[in-house]
């Protein structure tokens, strides 16, 4: 099944299994979802549970928080991460802080999903990756399903989680095809090794995973066995799996579509420095987006983003 179908199946199952689950967002109902994730849901579940919202990101995300506090289990969909910035106040100043500032009296069991990432020539205002920005915030959990299996099985545990969970779905993955298990997998706590290797750890997440895997295949032909680690959970980070992979390979490259400065990649590198510095054979390298708003023309957009060739070059640089 495709990533899109997997996400759709996950939402459908959640709506079927729990009457408290509602889906709300722009064009989730009549339009069937910006990316057709919720096509047919309005007919199946009705307008009490599939809520088309006006263009009011701050308002409906805030309403999602209140609905979660009031006993519902809302899935709030934001069209893309760019528009989530309009709702950032509610996410950061309310959802993330509520439990703490109430002294643990109130939790916010809310799931926010949004598309992220570049690669479709949508230019500067529609191509952001802000996973790192969200992963900066204590009080929310941040997931980045990068495989069809994760698209299928990460939503249920996210909904069961008592705290706000933000899910980033990279638009470049929507047509990805992959296997999914029949039985549910219940894990929103761990990173996963997607390809075992011994020479260098390629640490990544989301839309950069296929690029890292492609780079690993190519490196293999050159005699370098790369391990590819998919972080999956960007906050809280699964430091144990991360460090284990780095210790095993003794070299690491972090691949992150966020801009380089202050990125999640920077945080990963710092953790490696704190825990595995003396086990490294080379300084940790990273491949991130160039520090420029994403330009419209294809050749410039592609040049601004992490690419397999850049990953390969970074790995080879570790051996220079």
């Amino acid at each position, binding site marked *: 099944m495709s990533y899109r179908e997997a996400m759709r199946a996950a939402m459908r199952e959640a709506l079927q299994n729990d009457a408290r689950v509602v889906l709300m967002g*722009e064009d989730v109902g009549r339009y*069937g979802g910006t990316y057709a994730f919720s096509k047919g849901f309005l007919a199946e579940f009705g307008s009490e549970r599939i809520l088309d919202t006006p263009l009011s990101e701050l308002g409906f995300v805030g309403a999602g928080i209140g609905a979660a506090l009031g006993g519902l289990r809302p899935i709030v969909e934001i069209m893309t991460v*760019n528009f989530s910035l309009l709702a950032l106040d509610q996410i950061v100043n309310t959802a993330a802080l509520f439990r703490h500032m109430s002294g643990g009296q109130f939790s916010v069991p809310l799931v926010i999903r949004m598309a992220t990432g570049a690669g479709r020539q*949508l*230019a500067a205002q*529609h191509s952001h990756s802000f996973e790192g920005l969200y992963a900066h915030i204590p009080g929310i959990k941040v997931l980045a399903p990068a495989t069809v299996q994760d698209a299928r099985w990460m939503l249920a545990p996210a909904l069961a989680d008592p705290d706000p969970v933000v899910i980033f779905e990279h638009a470049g993955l929507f047509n990805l095809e992959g296997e999914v298990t029949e039985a549910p997998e219940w894990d929103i706590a761990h990173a996963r090794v997607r390809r075992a290797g011994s020479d260098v750890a390629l640490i990544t997440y989301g839309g950069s995973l296929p690029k890292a895997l492609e780079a690993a295949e190519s490196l293999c032909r050159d005699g370098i066995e790369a391990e590819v680690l998919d972080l999956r959970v960007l906050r809280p980070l699964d430091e144990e799996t991360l460090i284990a992979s780095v210790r095993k390979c003794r070299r690491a490259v972090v691949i992150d579509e966020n801009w380089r400065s202050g990125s999640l990649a920077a945080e990963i590198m710092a953790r490696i420095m704190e825990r595995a510095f003396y086990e490294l054979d080379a300084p940790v390298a990273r491949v991130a987006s*160039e*520090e420029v708003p994403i330009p*419209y023309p294809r050749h410039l957009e592609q*040049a601004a983003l992490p690419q397999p060739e850049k990953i390969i070059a970074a790995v080879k640089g570790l051996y220079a």
Partner: protein
Amino acid sequence: MTIDHPPPAPTTGPVPWEKSFAQKMLEQMLRIRRMEEKCAELYGAGKIRGFLHLYIGEEAIAVGALSCLTNDDNVVATYREHGQALARGIPMRALMAEMYGKREGCSRGRGGSMHLFDAERRFFGGNAIVAGGLPLAVGLALAAKRLGEARVTAVFFGDGAVAEGAFHEALNLAALWRLPVLFCCENNWYAMGTALERAQAETDLAKKASAYRIDAVACDGMDVVACREATEQALARLHAGRGPQFIEFRTYRFRAHSMFDAELYRDKAEVEAWRANDPILTFAARLRREDKLSDAEWAALEAAAEAEVADAVAFAETGTWEPVEDLLKDVYTPCHA
């Protein structure tokens, strides 16, 4: 069969303009139409990429409203801004090159269809965040007022933008500070797949502006005469010291929201009803009736528009790609030290 958003009856009344000016207005609408039809074709051919939002059906608004502005005024638009850009006087060549992503484009190729800019013509984009342009327009007007400049800032936005907080904050600020802003709401009844009545408890949009003590009118956005008159009158009130003005242009987009869209959210009959009210065809018919447009003149306008489009495409085709080495350009302003 009832239609959710019935079009007004096509205007048949006399055109209060002399022949040459009337033909000029027709020509402007036709240029936009032909350019965009070509854009759709080029999108299919993969020459234009990303999102492409066509203005087809709404041309009377940009042409009518912008015909009232001077070169000193400011214009702020949305991602559906090809019409405003062309009516503002940005050469079609520069627009087409921009949509190709070529260096010769009006945003040097960096912006594409949704981010058309032109400093010389005081065209401040091309904003793809819904309602993002409204606070910006307030600030432009604030600067003009503070600097003692007579310019007006016209800001265009859709019915969908009315739901955003930025809309309400911008209207209040403009009214509170009595700033020279002309709020131009292009109500085409849908924000992507969401019909106005599914997004607004109060669908009379002019009332929103009235609540902020801003003069507000609604006009037939399919009639270029009505669009121009409403704008002229609003500007007269603004210049008479009545503060910011709001016009709701009632219109319809004939095409999909962007290039892909199954259009499950609206009735084909509704689309057909509005198409019968085509702003270009109905205006041309009125001019013919009044002997202000002959068959030969219409043919000449058509031929000129076709030729201009062909020229713009040729220009874009021969345009150049920015070298990858320049990728990091224009993130910051170069130092003058």
